């Protein structure tokens, strides 16, 4: 029976090639938008490459303290002292790295001044991230201990600052300090990795950061095993309860959480720093709802096109009914037709998505972004196609099955 549905569907498509083309175009446009969004979200939440160990590490991206009664409130990033005192000593993580968020600095080289984004990171960072080393070496614990003035560049910045090549060993001036380039790594756009220049913590203009409970740091905690992650979360949440703020009377309660990437985004977007539940589920529901809403107009478009097709085929439908087709079978016929078209649209859409993403990379809308179409995106694409096919097929299918065969047959007679 399914085979017959498919064959009939094919015949219907070929009968009116113009409408098939228009419907297909409509489907492709919709699915491409959805798939590009899904690809970008996937890259943000489940990155591969540099942050490939994401399933094994968590990040702490905020500290919030509240006064009694919720009057006074401060939400900032961590200070180094907080990381050193409360996070580094934790038992469960294998490693804890302290990193700053990237900031714009001026890089001076002899005659030339340019801009770059700089991160200060400690040696543990390089063990948690999975950068591909293109030249030289990465900073290690020894560099941290001796406070060497070194830095690492990413490939694009190395090319930009040293067009002649051989950046390793050269010197640049940043923040009033001279740093020696010891390594070059690949470009990366991920949330913890994005930067042009990386330098150890000691290269910061002053040592005051060591005494700050709040600053512009984040912490990465690497687990020995992905199964340890909940234990780490509990330990970090507990550490927050032992936190002593700079003004324990004014700000007695403090929270910070070890989060997965999705949780980090959820907390920021939903302004949800005070509860253990980051609201990730709500964020996903909102995103899903937005996508469904987005599908509404295209689905309506397709419904209208389908309705027209049904009216055209009313005689055929009448005949099928006369010879014993049930409403359900007729409805199934239309749904199969629709889902097939959407699946075809999905495959074409995947190809187009790949092109669009490649254009994104080339246009550098988000610097160093590398997003491709992988299995996850393919899966999402097919899911969207299925949902879209059902959404736009159900109403016409229902209408088709309710068609009065008497009128249908008389109408075309």
């Amino acid at each position, binding site marked *: *029976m399914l085979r*017959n549905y498919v064959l009939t569907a094919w*015949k219907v498509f*070929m*009968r009116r090639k113009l409408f098939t083309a228009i419907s297909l175009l409509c489907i492709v446009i919709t699915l491409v938008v959805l798939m590009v969004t899904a690809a970008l979200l996937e890259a943000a939440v489940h990155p591969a490459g540099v942050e490939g160990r994401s399933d094994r590490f968590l990040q702490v991206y905020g500290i919030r303290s509240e006064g009694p009664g919720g009057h006074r409130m401060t939400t900032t990033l961590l200070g180094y002292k907080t990381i050193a005192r409360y996070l580094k000593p934790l038992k469960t993580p294998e490693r804890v790295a302290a990193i700053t968020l990237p900031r714009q600095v001026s890089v001076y080289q002899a005659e030339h001044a340019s801009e770059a984004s700089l991160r200060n990171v400690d040696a543990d960072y390089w063990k948690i991230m999975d950068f591909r080393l293109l030249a030289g070496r990465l900073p290690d614990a020894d560099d941290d201990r001796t406070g060497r003035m070194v830095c690492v560049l990413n490939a694009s910045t190395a090319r930009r600052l040293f067009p002649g090549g051989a950046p390793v060993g050269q010197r640049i001036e940043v923040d009033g300090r001279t740093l020696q380039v010891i390594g070059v790594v690949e470009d990366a756009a991920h949330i913890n990795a994005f930067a042009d220049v990386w330098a150890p913590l000691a290269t910061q203009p002053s040592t005051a950061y060591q005494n700050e409970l709040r600053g512009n740091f984040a912490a990465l905690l690497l687990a020995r095993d992905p199964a340890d992650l909940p234990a780490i979360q509990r330990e970090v949440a507990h550490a927050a309860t032992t936190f002593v703020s700079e003004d324990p009377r004014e700000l007695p309660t403090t929270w910070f959480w070890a989060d997965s990437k999705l949780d980090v985004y959820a907390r920021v977007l939903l302004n949800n720093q005070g509860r253990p539940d980051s609201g990730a589920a709500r964020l996903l529901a909102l995103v899903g709802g937005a996508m469904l809403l987005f599908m509404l107009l295209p689905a309506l478009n397709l419904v209208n096109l389908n309705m027209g097709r049904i009216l055209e085929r009313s*005689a*055929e439908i*009448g*005949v*099928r*009914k*006369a*010879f*014993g*087709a*049930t*409403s*359900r*079978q007729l409805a199934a016929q239309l749904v199969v037709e629709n889902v097939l078209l959407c699946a075809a649209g999905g495959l074409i859409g995947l190809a187009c998505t790949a092109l669009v993403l490649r254009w994104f990379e080339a246009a550098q809308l988000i610097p160093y972004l590398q997003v491709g179409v992988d299995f996850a995106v393919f899966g999402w694409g097919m899911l969207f196609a299925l949902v879209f096919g059902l959404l736009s097929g159900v109403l016409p299918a229902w209408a088709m099955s309710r068609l009065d*065969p*008497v009128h249908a*047959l*008389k109408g*075309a*007679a």
Partner: protein
Amino acid sequence: MIRLHDVSKTYRTDKIETLALKDIDLHVARGEFVAMMGPSGCGKSTLLNVIGLLDRPGQGSVEIGGKPVASYRDRDVARLRNRMFGFVFQSFHLIADLRVIDNVELPLLYRGGAGGGERRRLARAALERVGLGARMDHYPNQLSGGQQQRVAIARAIVGQPEVLLADEPTGNLDSRMGAEIMDLLLALNADGTTVVMVTHDEQEARRVGRIVRLFDGQLVEREHAHAA
């Protein structure tokens, strides 16, 4: 085998009510060949549709094979239609982008049970019966009017239904082709199929066992024609 009691049917469109059928009492026995006649708009097609369960009466009861169908759900009605009845329409209603053999197979698709090979065999047999075995792989628009109607008849009999319902089957054909179709229908009736046919043509009607006349939705007279 087909019994209609006090059947009435009203069509309502916006503000106009049309009484299409009024107090129809009809009994068609197995093996009969009934011709339904009457002027245009008198409701004969509607009556055919009610018999064939394509339409439900507003009032009255319909019994098929002794069983009342009023309480049947859509699924049961469809199944009954599939097994009991075969339809032949004035404008053939063949599906243009299916081949002749696929058109004939159509009722078997909705029957279930028979596999692809079996369906093909039955369809071929039906086409042979109507004399078009050689045209299996043609498309409907490659056939003449008479040939198309014969394909439609093959489609109607492929499932070996008990009753053939024909709504002005020769209406779109010239007299020679029309006569051929009548011959075919009579032959099928002789083999045991009950036939209920709507027609305009007095000549055709006289070749048939029984004539039922309608006027303004009501039965006027019943007469038995002389045997041809």
